[in-house]
């Protein structure tokens, strides 16, 4: 391969590193109205009245909207393929507010000062209601969070909204309870993962204007332009033809921008006033009025025989979706299906879940999407099982690992077509120096160095649902335009999709122009989430390029007057043993006279979602007197199939591991007793800095995925899953305490040490 599997620079690299104005707020016109939202100070309340007279008189205020001024059609902000599995439980503005931060009034004015002044002058009278803040108290509470009559479901998701149950479900194979009885050792523990904030550096940002056809144009930092178009149209109760969405460069997403967070507010202001409007969330709002990772409590029962053959795995997940159900019914599934599948050799499996409403900020999508939470629970339990069996945790895993060719009972019955996890584990074991370092070494009176391990899997797109189309055009002069609907959110999909096209068309990267997303121009793509872009959109690129080559050969055969079967294409020319035409010539001929401008379209979806795999190994230094942890080294060994661009893949792995370290050690969205978010800034919610992460090392042990483009699977999400369980394991190996509730803070470690004495 000439272009694929090469560390090519990102197409947009130089404009990003020279600070060009390419993000939403950089390109918004100066004359946009500034849009802000007055938010609820109460976790649960009914609005009795809103007095806006004084605010309206503030010079420069153009528009103030309350729930009485906006369409009352329920929708979900979750960016998922239609019909969405998430319940329709939202209004743009509602008479009820369900968490601290829920929008109450939309204010737009000519400048920030006027808007801020108006916000202060609005008076809202609330009937304050008692909230539910603890997810374990949600089911069958006398308080009901959603009692509206127009609450709507597209599917049977095991919902019982009167009981605050957003979704529930169960899966089983074999008889777990019977198996557990006959097991030699059983681990039965509960693990608690917390809400986290995606904390991408660019906050939610959108601007909108009406074009000369009276259509609302939405320029927005999103992962899901096509879902934004549909959801905004639904919320505003206007036809989809009236909405156009454009995605400029994005300053990170990590799932946060898989939900329609900021778009609707400026859009409705533009609709009402006819004027351009913009809404740039500040960091406080980005923390407390968006969506977080779902908090989960996961009970694991795990049984094995004397030899360490895992017989039974049972998982019960209680997931907190917060005030609204965005991604609630879907994230939870991954906590079971994308964890226990690793131990596919077990004879019985059980997975049950409940997803509940509480009066906290809605949860949503965050890299890993439930698999991260599940990985902490099950991998920790596997490590605890190894202790009970008195067995090396690596040996225990390798004994029970799934293998290529396996039918994965707990993974929708799919067959595993590529897997190199075993070698990932071997490699990591060697690199971390497991045999010398496991379980721990004492460095001084108070310092211990120890190692920990975890393995994980994710998916590549959502099987049977995610859909991507691309179009490739042959332009005069023989260069190509690649139109995609997939959303480059910094991770470089514009570049890697161009690499695939260049590989198929046997040309240089500079012969491919990539056109990012504009819903008026780009072919449909469900969006950049669920680790789908390389695998799903990539395959569309391959298909479209092959079609285009066929078309070029047909046209060349007409010009050369030869049988098309005799012709071949080598990137420069189309030829047979006698005749030949250069691409350049062909392209020029096709755009004059009775030419034929060539465009090839292709769509792709996949009936399977081949899992990428990763083994994570950590070495930490723990201070036994303070509980402080320092990460020394983290080794991430990844099987993502063929790496289309190894250098960009490596950065994704490093970035994912560091986010995982943050989640493991200190990231936690916490609430006061009245439901107010306590840490809504980078002052209080700490993400890792470059001093906190030790050394990260990345290796690829690639398998070849036959259903993926050039053998590729996905990379984006699997990389965040191992740090939490691996670090928890290292802590156990250092001081013999199991921390089962994230984050693994020094306080928790020290308290556990003291309590275990």
């Amino acid at each position, binding site marked *: 391969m000439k272009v694929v599997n090469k560390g090519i620079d990102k197409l947009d690299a*130089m404009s990003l590193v*020279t600070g060009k104005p390419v*993000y939403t707020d950089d390109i918004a016109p100066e004359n946009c109205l500034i849009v802000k939202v007055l938010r609820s100070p109460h976790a649960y309340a009914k609005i009795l009245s809103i007095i806006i007279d004084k605010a309206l008189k503030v010079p420069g205020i153009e528009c103030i909207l309350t729930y009485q001024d906006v369409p009352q059609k329920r929708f979900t902000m979750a960016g998922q393929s239609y019909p969405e599995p998430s319940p329709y439980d939202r209004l743009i503005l509602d008479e009820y507010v369900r968490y601290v931060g829920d929008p109450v009034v939309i204010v737009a004015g000519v400048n920030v000062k006027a808007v801020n002044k108006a916000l202060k002058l609005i008076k809202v009278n609330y009937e304050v209601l008692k909230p539910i803040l603890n997810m374990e108290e949600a089911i069958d509470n006398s308080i009901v969070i959603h009692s509206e009559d127009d609450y709507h479901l597209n599917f049977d998701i095991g919902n019982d909204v009167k009981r605050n149950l957003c979704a529930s479900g169960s899966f089983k194979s074999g008889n777990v309870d019977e198996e557990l009885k006959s097991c030699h050792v059983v681990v039965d523990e509960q693990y608690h993962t917390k809400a986290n904030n995606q904390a991408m*550096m*660019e906050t939610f940002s959108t601007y909108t204007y009406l074009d000369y056809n009276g259509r609302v144009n939405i320029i927005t930092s999103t992962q899901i332009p096509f879902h934004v178009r549909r959801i905004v149209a639904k919320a505003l109760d206007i036809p989809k033809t009236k909405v156009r969405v454009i995605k400029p460069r994005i300053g990170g997403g990590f799932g946060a921008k898989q939900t329609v967070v900021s778009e609707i507010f400026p859009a409705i202001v533009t609709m009402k006033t006819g004027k351009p409007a913009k809404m740039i969330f500040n960091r406080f709002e980005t923390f407390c009025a968006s969506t977080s990772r779902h908090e989960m409590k996961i009970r694991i029962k795990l049984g094995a025989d004397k030899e360490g053959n895992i017989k039974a795995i049972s998982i019960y997940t209680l997931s907190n979706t917060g005030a609204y159900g965005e991604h609630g019914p879907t994230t939870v599934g991954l906590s079971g299906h994308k964890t226990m599948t690793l131990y596919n050799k077990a004879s019985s499996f059980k997975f049950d879940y409940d997803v509940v409403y509480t009066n906290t900020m809605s949860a949503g999508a965050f890299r890993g999407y439930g698999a991260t939470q599940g990985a902490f629970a099950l991998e920790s339990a596997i490590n605890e099982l190894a202790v009970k069996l008195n067995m090396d945790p690596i040996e225990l895993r390798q004994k029970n690992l799934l293998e290529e060719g396996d039918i994965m009972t707990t993974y929708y019955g799919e067959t595993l077509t590529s897997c190199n996890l075993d070698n990932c584990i071997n490699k990591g074991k060697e690199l971390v120096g497991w045999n010398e370092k496991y379980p721990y070494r004492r460095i001084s009176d108070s310092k211990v160095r120890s190692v920990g391990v975890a393995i994980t899997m994710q998916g590549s797109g959502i099987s049977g649902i995610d859909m991507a189309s691309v179009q490739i055009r042959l332009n005069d002069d023989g260069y190509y335009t690649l139109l995609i609907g997939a959303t480059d959110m*910094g991770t470089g999909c514009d570049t890697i999709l161009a690499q695939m096209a260049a590989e198929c068309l046997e040309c240089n990267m500079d012969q491919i122009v990539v056109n990012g997303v504009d819903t008026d121009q780009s072919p449909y793509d469900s969006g950049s989430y669920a680790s789908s872009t390389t695998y799903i959109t990539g395959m569309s690129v391959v298909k479209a390029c092959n079609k285009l080559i066929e078309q070029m050969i047909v046209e060349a055969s007409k010009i050369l007057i030869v049988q098309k079967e005799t012709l071949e294409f080598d990137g420069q020319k189309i030829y047979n043993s006698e005749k030949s035409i250069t691409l350049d010539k062909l392209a020029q001929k096709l755009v004059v006279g009775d030419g034929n401008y060539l465009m090839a379209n292709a769509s792709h979806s996949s009936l399977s979602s081949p899992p990428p795999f990763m083994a994570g190994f950590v070495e930490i230094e723990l201070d036994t007197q303070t509980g402080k942890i320092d990460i020394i080294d983290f080794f991430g060994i990844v099987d993502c199939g063929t790496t289309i661009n190894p250098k960009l893949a490596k950065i994704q792995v490093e970035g994912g*591991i*560091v*986010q995982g370290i943050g989640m493991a050690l200190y990231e936690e969205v916490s609430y006061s007793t009245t439901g107010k978010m306590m840490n809504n800034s*980078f002052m209080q919610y700490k993400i890792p800095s470059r001093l906190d992460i030790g050394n990260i090392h990345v290796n690829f042990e690639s398998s070849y995925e036959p259903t993926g483009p050039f053998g590729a699977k996905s990379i984006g999400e699997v990389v965040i899953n191992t740090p939490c369980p691996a670090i928890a394991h290292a802590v156990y190996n250092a001081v013999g305490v199991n921390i089962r509730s994230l984050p693994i803070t020094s306080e928790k470690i020290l308290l556990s040490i003291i309590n275990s004495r």
Partner: protein
Amino acid sequence: MQIKCTINNRIFVEDIQVDMLLIDFLRHLGFLSVKRGCDTANCGLCTVWIDNKTVLSCSILAVSVNEKHVTTLEGIQDEAIEFGKFIASEGAEQCGYCSPGFIMNVLAMKRELVNPTEDSIKHYLSGNLCRCTGYMGQLRAIKKFLNATRGGCLSESS
């Protein structure tokens, strides 16, 4: 009030509100490389130079640059390109949103520290957050850049 300052070697005389922050002043004048990532002076995205010293432009008032010289990434494009190529060849500009502030600080560090160790590099830049890359690629880029532009090696990390 009226202030007079130099931004990227160009003189500006502007009438501004006294409570305007430097970041908003700069963006208003079209220096859009200056990014805002937080409201609490914690992210480093808004880093610029005043009289060649790095400052967080979100944390000072625009009026305080009266009679001073401000530099943003727009003013040092040649250096940005030079270092930027090293970042690009590591793939360490993922979303790129943190890049301008980060690069301003790296270039200031290059002027200030002689043969810095890996630890002193990390300390110098610890106020520049990046959520995408995990920092390792940035560090590789910095080391290669310093080596290439100084013709010498870094002293080893302690």
